[in-house]
């Protein structure tokens, strides 16, 4: 599988990153098998979070069996020093590891959160302390919120090494600032920041709960994903050819094997084909930017 430099971290990430949230919906045996499958396909970058149910715990056995093969990203939604420090320690314990390669501010949504994170006693102080102690190697940030806020975060966090944000043909076809994740990508490139794409497989928001109750949704994702091999492949190709370092799978485990297959066969997507996809989906709704009120 193709690899690309993850910004200036010194790590070459595979063009697909394994979003370990998928493990949350599997029993331990299935989780172990999924990690083996992902590693067998050559994936070297994993991403997890304490908010993904018990994904950290289920990842732990195979993570430790294959620790040297895995560049591990984890994250926290805590915004202050004490909260972030405590969450990092808890994640290390649940993951049964003593270090995390990439620790990320998770799900930035509001301006006031950025104030807290970057301020005195903010989460970034805990991140930097952990980096000095050798517990964390790199600092990143994730958001499916407003692109303008992500741009501001780039301005305000000098030691930011990676960004995770949405990229798909539906948002790429919308011109307004609220969907301008391409500006984030461009700016990240200029700054040498590695870029991880999420929501590549988002088809749109789910129908209203009146129309389709939450319990009747066929996938675990909070948005409706594309789910045929052809759609998965074109969505993967689009995201991977947009300049991102790596593309993260949709969270539902039923989709992971198809996405792995698309990633294994990725060989680029030319501009005319990218525009074709954007124009085909021009009138679709985008589930991002979204504020999930965590």
């Amino acid at each position, binding site marked *: 599988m193709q690899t690309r430099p993850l910004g200036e971290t010194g790590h070459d990430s595979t063009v697909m990153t394994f979003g370990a949230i998928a493990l949350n919906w599997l029993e331990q045996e299935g989780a172990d098998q999924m990690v083996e499958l992902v590693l067998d396909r050559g994936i070297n970058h994993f991403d997890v979070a304490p908010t993904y149910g018990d994904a950290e715990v289920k990842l732990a056995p195979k993570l430790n069996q294959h620790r040297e093969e895995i560049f591990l990203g984890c994250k926290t939604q805590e915004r202050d020093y004490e909260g972030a420090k405590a969450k990092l320690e808890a994640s290390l314990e649940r993951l049964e590891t003593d270090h995390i390669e990439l620790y990320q501010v998770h799900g930035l949504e509001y301006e006031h959160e950025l104030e807290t994170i970057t301020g005195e006693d903010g989460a970034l102080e805990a991140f930097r302390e952990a980096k000095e102690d050798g517990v964390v190697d790199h600092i990143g940030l994730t958001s499916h919120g407003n692109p303008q806020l992500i741009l501001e975060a780039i301005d305000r966090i000098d030691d930011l090494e990676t960004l995770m944000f949405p990229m798909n043909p539906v948002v790429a*076809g*919308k*011109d*307004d600032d609220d969907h301008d994740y391409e500006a984030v990508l461009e700016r990240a490139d200029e700054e040498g920041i590695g870029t991880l794409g999420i929501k590549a497989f988002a088809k749109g928001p789910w129908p209203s709960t009146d129309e389709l109750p939450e319990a009747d949704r066929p996938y675990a994702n909070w948005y409706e994903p594309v789910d045929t091999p052809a759609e998965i492949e074109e969505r993967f190709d689009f995201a991977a050819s947009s300049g991102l370092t790596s593309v993260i799978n949709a969270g539902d485990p039923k989709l992971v094997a198809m996405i792995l297959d698309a990633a294994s066969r990725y060989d680029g997507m*030319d*501009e*005319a*084909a990218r*525009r*074709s*996809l*954007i*124009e*085909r989906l*021009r*009138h679709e709704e985008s589930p991002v930017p979204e504020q999930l009120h965590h």
Partner: protein
Amino acid sequence: MDVPTTVTTALEDRPIAGATCLEAGAGVGNTTAGLLAADAARVYAVTNDANHASTVSERVGRREVDRTAVLEADLRDLPLASNSVDVITAHGLCNVLTPQALERVATELTRVAAAGCHLVVDDYEPLPADAAVRELFALENAVAELVGGRPHLTFYPATMLRRLFAGHGWTFDRERTLLDPVPWTRRHLEAHAAVARAGAEELPTELREPLLADLEDLVAAIGEESVGEMYSIAMRFSD
């Protein structure tokens, strides 16, 4: 308003800023929006369709009153002075012109072009033989032929349009692929089906009913299809 990537790609290497522009065949105003976004000094959006003229005025003209003039006019007889336009666009126009109309439109566009004028012609290559949408377009054309004696759609190869405009004094500058494949979405196919249905209203029952039955079957069977190529040709008027 979101400007389609086909429009931004066709215009991105043209000197639009400060130019007086003509969108020939304004449709819903996508290219007019693209020209305004690229800082055109003035855009004449010309269409012979009253509904389109009204749509362009609503979507674009109201916000850009000083820079936009929506003209309901025949492209074969433009209400514009000779040698007055710096950039002319024909985005998806030529396929709805018959060969006779195309020749006359080319003559008129050349008349209004200022020395050094840039022309951007974006259109579709003829569809491959195995494309399902060919059958739908053939049926649309059959209705148009039966009603008015001429087809509704003609897909001209890029090379042919280059030669046509070269014959009017335009010099070829560049060609690029805008879409490959072309996404013929349900919306597109439904719009073509609506044209055929409207035309069929003028046919006698014994012709109309089997054509409409075939039409509905085709629309349902095709759903949507991505096939063919959309190109962009840029030329320069040197006279």
